[in-house]
């Protein structure tokens, strides 16, 4: 099962269309389920979609999937890493008005070398990566801790308790 998620806020028709075209060409449509937001304009012909998912249902879809396909959003990336699901991502672009700026492109560049993460710079690169993961040719991601770096947690914790003493 492949779970396509574009995040809860903005539509990402370019990614949805690209996955749909790949499903048409590869015959994988029955294996794909997509969450594509309420304002999605493109309606896929080859796979089932919902606009949004509640947290419990989202979690279930994520757990059931063998592969995640998503935008380069940190929520999707962190969830994939923490559940050890391989993730294929396409960043939203600022100049296409898919986000305010190109922060997802920067995210993609910084995370693409992680085990378990594959990144397409544009929609031309995506079908090849989807073929690769559908054939099982992708390492699983590394298991990450459920919580932040100890040093970061300690910095915030110390700040909280200093505050309590000074008030």
């Amino acid at each position, binding site marked *: 099962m492949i779970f396509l998620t574009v995040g809860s806020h903005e539509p990402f028709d370019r990614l949805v269309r690209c996955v749909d075209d790949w499903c048409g060409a590869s015959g994988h449509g029955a294996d794909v389920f997509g969450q594509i937001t309420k304002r999605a304009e493109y309606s896929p012909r080859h796979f089932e979609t919902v606009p949004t998912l509640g947290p419990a249902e989202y979690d279930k879809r994520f757990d059931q999937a063998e592969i995640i396909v998503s935008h380069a*959003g940190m929520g999707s990336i962190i969830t994939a890493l923490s559940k050890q699901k391989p993730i294929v991502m396409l960043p939203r672009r600022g100049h296409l008005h898919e986000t305010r700026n190109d922060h997802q492109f920067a995210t993609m560049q910084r995370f693409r070398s992680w085990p378990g993460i594959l990144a397409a710079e544009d929609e031309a690169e995506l079908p090849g990566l989807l073929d690769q993961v559908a054939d099982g040719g992708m390492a699983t991601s590394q298991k990450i801790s459920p919580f932040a*770096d100890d040093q970061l947690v300690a910095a915030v914790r110390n700040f909280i308790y200093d505050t309590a003493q000074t008030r």
Partner: protein
Amino acid sequence: MSDKSPRVLAVASGGGHWIQLCRMIPAWDGCHVTYVTTDPGFRTEVEAIAAARGQQRPGYHVVIEANRLQKMKLVRALTQMVWILLRVRPDVVITTGAAPGYFALRLGAMMGCRTVWLDSIANAEELSMAGQKAGKHAGLWLTQWEHLATQDGADGKGPHYKGTVI
């Protein structure tokens, strides 16, 4: 936990901001924590994590989802946040963003709370817009990218780098 334990208001909009906030949960073990987010559905998750860590059941409030272009919704979110701050009276406000976190941080600072802005790890090349505005009002201003941190001693305000949520 005693009545003297710090009261913490932990704020994030749904999606990536919320997921990053939840990865900071051990930081407020032993505190009276109240979460504020934009979706009622995350309540079960934070209550389960608190129970698993032997913590008191957290408070939970929902504010309306609004981005910087939705002015009327922003006004509503701001009003809701004022009400929540007056009810909860936190000692510390902690947020990963975005709009609800900005409001909570600025309002909290005005009410005498100490404040933490943890900029999202999604902002690898420049700080978030809200972070650039809110950070200078924060008692502790953090970025998750070392190259975006200012050297300690410049003006001491930050943003500082102490690690990441991953």
